[in-house]
């Protein structure tokens, strides 16, 4: 009996030795990783299919008889980044491409959904963007999995395996975000527009106009002239606050005493959700054109540029606004009032920009 046991242990050691010197253990490891990636990829695929069904039903309810055509057209829509090795005019080119992409998708939906109101169309547009994001993640992960499998690329599969929990978490966040976009509920990213909306409630409104999908509201607050800039709501819209601020500053020939931007900011792990922080600069998370427009306008006329951010994680930013963020927005209004009163005298002109998606928030 003792001899048999020793023999089994010896055989096990020999098998392990052979596996190690021939590299077979790595191949077994590779197969295990591929299996785990496939399980998670299938989970992503199920979420994608579930979301496609939801959007198809949404389109059917809005009167589209064949929702597959606009769905597949928007899902596969892409934007090619501008040339980076020649930086001259890169912002102008990027802005042009982003605006062209925006108007192209809008036109596609207008032709597929004629007679649909702006509010509903914006919700469809954003819902499709969410599904498109999941679709891109699914296709890219599948690509690297198949490539790694085909080439027996141990390193590629290993990296993918270690990234999969993070990727799956991101997909689940997008999946959860879809319901908010389909029903037009305010999301965490709407913190900026909500803060300026609350500030407006405390001010006397003088005039309103809309330029470039962005609302410009002139109001008076404690003897100061406020120019509130936010995306036009309550549809799903981020507007073009940078371009609009640039234009306003030029129209006023630099006669602005302060520019304040309020936005949602991604928190670091360990930071508290709903924490408010202030600083200097343009608080806006666009790819570049809007942010640089604000910076250029402020620096051209030497206008102080202040920023107020409300911290949250990605999930809180793109899903229905959490109560803790809503409460932070109420506190942020008081914070904003303090900044305005501390830094500007009576009769000052202040541009206050609420940056973010204004879904569910009017104005």
């Amino acid at each position, binding site marked *: 009996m003792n001899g048999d046991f020793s023999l089994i242990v010896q055989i096990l050691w020999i098998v392990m030795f052979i596996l190690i010197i021939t590299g077979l253990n790595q191949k077994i490891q590779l197969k295990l990783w591929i299996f785990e990636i496939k399980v998670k990829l299938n989970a992503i695929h199920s979420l994608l299919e579930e979301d496609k069904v939801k959007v198809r039903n949404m389109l059917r309810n809005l009167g589209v008889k064949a929702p597959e055509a606009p769905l597949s057209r928007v899902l596969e829509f892409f934007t090619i980044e501008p040339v980076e090795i020649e930086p001259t005019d890169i912002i102008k080119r990027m802005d042009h491409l982003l605006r062209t992409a925006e108007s192209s998708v809008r036109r596609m939906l207008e032709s597929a959904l004629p007679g649909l109101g702006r509010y509903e169309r914006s919700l469809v547009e954003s819902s499709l963007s969410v599904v498109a994001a999941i679709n891109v993640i699914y296709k890219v992960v599948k690509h690297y999995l198949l490539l790694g499998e085909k080439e027996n690329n141990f390193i590629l599969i290993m990296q993918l395996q270690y990234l999969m929990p993070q990727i799956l978490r991101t997909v689940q966040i997008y999946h959860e975000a879809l319901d908010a976009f389909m*029903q037009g509920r305010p999301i965490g990213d709407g913190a900026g527009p909500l803060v300026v909306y609350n500030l407006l409630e405390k001010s006397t409104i003088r005039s309103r106009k809309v330029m470039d999908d962005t609302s410009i509201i002139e109001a008076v607050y404690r003897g100061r002239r406020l120019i509130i800039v936010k995306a036009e709501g309550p549809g799903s819209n981020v507007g073009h606050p940078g371009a609009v601020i640039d234009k306003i500053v030029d129209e006023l020939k630099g006669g602005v005493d302060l520019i304040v931007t309020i936005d949602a900011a991604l928190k670091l792990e360990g930071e508290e959700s709903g924490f408010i922080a202030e600083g200097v600069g343009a608080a806006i998370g666009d790819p570049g054109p809007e942010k640089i427009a604000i910076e250029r306008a402020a620096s051209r006329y030497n206008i102080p540029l202040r920023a107020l951010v409300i911290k949250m994680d990605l999930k809180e930013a793109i899903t*229905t*606004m959490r109560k803790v963020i809503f409460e932070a927005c109420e506190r942020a209004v008081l914070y904003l009032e303090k900044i305005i009163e501390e830094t500007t005298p009576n009769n000052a002109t202040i541009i206050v920009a609420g940056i973010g998606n204004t879904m569910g928030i009017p104005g």
Partner: protein
Amino acid sequence: MPEDYTSVIAIILFLIIVLYLVYESYSRRPRKTVYVVRELLVCVKCNYRVEKDFEPGDFIGLVKGKCPQCGEDLKLKGIYAVERGKL
């Protein structure tokens, strides 16, 4: 005989480590929190506040009903998600 004991102990330790790692990887998975979407209605005159379930299509600033205390308009002040357990 002592050699056999060593092997048995090594195998038991190996199994304990494997079981611990499996347990840890499952226990670390965050529990899924269920949220319900609520809307906060505030009276424009007396500041009476009431929280209700969200209805699709509602947006902040919408006038929705009358105040049961003073009869003035109830305005939608906020739409937010609350953990089901914290309602």
